[in-house]
């Protein structure tokens, strides 16, 4: 199955081409779009195979005895790869509008690192064992570092330090140790349905190993190692949108789900009391992050905390440890990806058109930017879990999973957090459409000295509007046509729950 390698190589080669054509922006951006398209067109045809039960695999290099660099496609990875490669196309369109609209510097570096990040994300999605996954995981951290610090000023350097510091220290200090521990007790790092640990480890050690994994996967942003995510918001918005709402953070929760399902095995964890802490910690993260989000005035920071809380939904759902809740977790990866990227696109659109970054500045903006705010509304509804959006679906599965296993704590968290989500998203929608616009003088926000007031702007550039409409539509479409992700998610737990 050499085409697996080709899929990952496509964006890598794209990155080289982008670097080579950096002098002429039009060619460079065409290359970006073409690469994105080519990647998606190679990922998509794999889907029927995987649904039919095939597990295409490829061993690239026998790096160390028993620890090869290997790829393998399984349902969850398939879904993740589909989401990432599809949204990359949309995000490429968006970033062209955004980067040009904001006259950002170093655009070539931006596009190169972006393609690299996608290549590594696909590598994570298709990783055939924990070693491969870890390799791409670290590569993703490093390739996104230049994107986070894109501005190159003191603030972004500090943010970059937090970003790299937390992600590297958790992965090297905990995750690597966890992986090696796993290897030393099981002699294998492969992903096997049902887990590889049954009978190899028991009692409190399971809890400890689970701790190493859950806190080692810093990208899943479980409290208290979540600080890198708000810090990463200094990056240009397309980065926040695709990477810090989709690729990077989803790589985190994707790894979490994979570890729980394929390494530990649901049954092992469900029967071990020392592994129960995960449910409570992730539940607490959901609530606390929502509460923090309520207090954020900076729109991107509010979205970042919302992401932290939504990521912990996935962990929470996986930690309920019933097949149906794991389906919910997988679905939520998809649903949140579409919803959150829409929200970030909208935030970037507002910044590009009006140079506004704070929630308190958004009064009445819905009338000037109807498309943007309509998309924002759809995204918000999905976050809250209101039909007809994708968020409803995943929450439904999570709730029924929690109910069926009588995990009342999880049920409580889900209900309470839905209220909180509504609490921090609906006021924005309300203000944007129903409040009158504030006069010019009140504009106290961060205007970056561009001299734009709140007056005299309309919608954002066309590529931006197109991109955010597509993702908003996707959010709704997922509700009505959940077939594909649902089938993949059910395949993950081995049949219809």
């Amino acid at each position, binding site marked *: 199955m050499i085409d697996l390698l080709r899929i990952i190589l496509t964006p890598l080669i794209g990155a080289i081409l982008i670097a080579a054509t950096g002098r002429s922006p039009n060619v460079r951006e065409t290359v970006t779009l073409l690469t994105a398209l080519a990647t998606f067109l190679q990922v998509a045809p794999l889907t029927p195979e995987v649904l039919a039960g095939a597990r295409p695999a490829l061993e690239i290099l026998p790096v*160390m005895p028993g620890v090869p660099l290997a790829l393998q496609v399984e349902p969850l990875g398939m879904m993740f790869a589909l989401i990432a490669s599809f949204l990359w196309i949309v995000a490429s369109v968006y970033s062209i509008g955004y980067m040009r609209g904001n006259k950002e510097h170093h655009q070539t570096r931006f596009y190169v690192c972006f393609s690299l990040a996608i290549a590594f994300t696909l590598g994570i999605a298709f990783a055939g064992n924990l070693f491969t996954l870890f*390799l791409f995981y*670290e*590569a993703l951290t*490093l390739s996104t570092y230049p994107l986070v610090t894109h501005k190159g000023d003191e603030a972004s350097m500090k943010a970059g330090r937090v970003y790299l510091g937390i992600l590297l220290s958790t992965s090297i200090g905990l995750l*690597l140790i966890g992986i090696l*521990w796993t*290897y*030393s007790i099981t002699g294998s790092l492969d992903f096997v349905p049902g887990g590889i640990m049954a009978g190899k480890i028991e009692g409190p050690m399971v809890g400890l190993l689970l701790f190493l994994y859950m806190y080692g996967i810093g990208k899943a942003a479980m409290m208290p190692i979540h600080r890198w995510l708000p810090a990463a918001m200094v990056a240009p918005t397309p980065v926040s949108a695709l990477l810090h709402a989709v690729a990077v953070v989803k790589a985190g929760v994707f790894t979490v789900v994979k570890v729980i399902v394929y390494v530990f095995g649901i049954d092992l964890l469900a029967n071990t009391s020392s592994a129960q802490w995960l449910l409570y910690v992730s539940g607490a993260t959901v609530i606390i992050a929502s509460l923090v989000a309520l207090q954020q005035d900076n729109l991107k920071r509010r979205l970042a905390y919302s992401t932290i809380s939504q990521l912990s939904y996935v962990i929470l759902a996986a930690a309920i440890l019933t097949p149906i809740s794991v389906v919910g977790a997988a679905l939520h990866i998809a649903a949140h990806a579409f919803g959150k990227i829409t929200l970030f696109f909208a935030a970037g659109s507002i910044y590009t058109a009006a140079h506004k970054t704070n929630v308190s500045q958004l009064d009445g903006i819905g009338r000037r930017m109807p498309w943007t705010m309509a998309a924002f509304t759809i995204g918000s509804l999905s976050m809250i879990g209101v039909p007809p959006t994708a968020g409803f679906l995943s929450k439904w599965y999570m709730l029924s999973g929690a109910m069926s296993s009588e995990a009342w704590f999880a049920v409580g968290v889900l209900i309470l957090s839905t209220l909180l989500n509504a609490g921090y998203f609906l006021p924005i929608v309300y203000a944007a459409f129903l409040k009158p616009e504030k006069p010019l003088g009140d504009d106290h926000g961060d205007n970056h000295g561009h001299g734009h007031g709140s007056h005299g702007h309309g919608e954002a550039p066309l590529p931006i509007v197109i991109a955010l409409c597509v993702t908003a539509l996707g959010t709704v479409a997922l509700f009505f046509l959940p077939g594909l992700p649902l089938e993949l998610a059910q395949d993950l737990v081995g049949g219809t729950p």
Partner: protein
Amino acid sequence: MIADQLPALQVALPLIAAPFCVFLRRPLPAWGWAMAVTMACLGMAISLLLAVLHGGPISYHVGDWDPPWGIELRVDMLTAFVLVLVSGIGALVMAYARESVRAEIPSERHALFYAMYLLCLTGLLGMTITGDAFNLFVFLEISSLSTYAMVGLGKGRQALLAAYNYLILGTVGATFYVLGVGLLYMITGTLNMADLAERLPAVANTRTFVAAAGFLAVGLSLKLALFPLHKWLPPAYAHAPSVVTAFLASTATKVSLYVLIRIFVEVLAPAFRAAHLPGPLSEGDVVTILALVAMFSGSFVAIFQADAKRMLAYSSVAQIGYMVLGVSMLTVTGLSAGLVHMFNHAIIKATLFLAVGCVFLRIGSVQVKDMAGLGKRMPLTMAAFVLGGLSLIGIPGTGGFVSKWQLVMGAFEKGWWWAALLIGLSSLLAVVYVWKVVEVAYFKPAPKDAPPVKEAPISMLVPLALIALCNLFFGLQTDWSLGVARAAAASLLGGGTP
């Protein structure tokens, strides 16, 4: 048959070639000669490695005197591996040296410098290949004496003080080593290592043996710069010419580690197993603790260095801790982790010091603060530095990761989960000091009045790029590093030779 004489030629060639550098006098011919000799050594080392891989260990009897009376040169897999490493690094460094030496050493001393370099190479190769404990001392001193002279050639008068202090401590270390060997000779009547290994267990329960082991341990640790005997290393590395630092950092300490392994694992370990030593802590535990302390103290001190070379030197102290930690496990995995890290770290440090050498050539300083804006102005050099740094941290896909992986595996095998955690933690310290340089080079703009800076000349960039790519290569293809290390470790611990 010339092929039969390879083990002797391996050492004799650079030794005989060294004086010719002095006769050649002019810089260019001297460099060309040294380069050619180094390449020849590399060729011989590779053919020895191939010979060993196919035909098993080679024993060469100097002057046809049979061991244990005559001096034996022994080439097994590990020996050949280290020979290739040393001469390979030597070849790269020599290719790089032309421009760097021209900038850092007055031209009338070039020929002498190249002669010293060849002598140092002789010593290192000799230490590796010899099977005789006293002969090893002679080669040790050949390499050390030439090293003192080379360190003293550094710019600035601090280099002289560094060389002097290195000389004093190095000589004390070497003398301790001779004393240890003398005590072993007293109780066994032999100096041949293989012979010693056979005879020692019978006399392991004597005070003489314990004293000998102590003297050998302290003497070799001094040469190896194992914490707390590392004080000579940072100043020596910081003030020596860039080429010398790169060469020493990636070969001299590595050969010392090799000797430590030879003496302790091969010669003394059988006797230790036979002996009943008193005390709550065994020597092994002491070494483990020292290695752990080295890992942390070295990295920690490195963080606070303003001088990039000194920073990397302290980092070496820490990395030596990793290697010794692996060796102190005395399991196949642990020992192979030590060996593979010896190999990978040689590549890592060569990359980093060569990159710093390029920087020094262009901006005339190795202070971290002066590197502002270099990410833009010397992109290739800094890219190599970052690559080396990532490997030092142990990012997967680089050589450093493979060693760290093995080391942690070894720790788990021993049940030392705390060591596994500490290894993880101390790699994070490496992130801090590597990133300190990265941030300055890529985020701080160059000062307004800074003179324009070009990328380093091509003759320096090519070796730098080669060695930098080795970091990636050996991160993904581990047959030649880990494969050889495992086989060597298995044969060392198996008692016999494969």
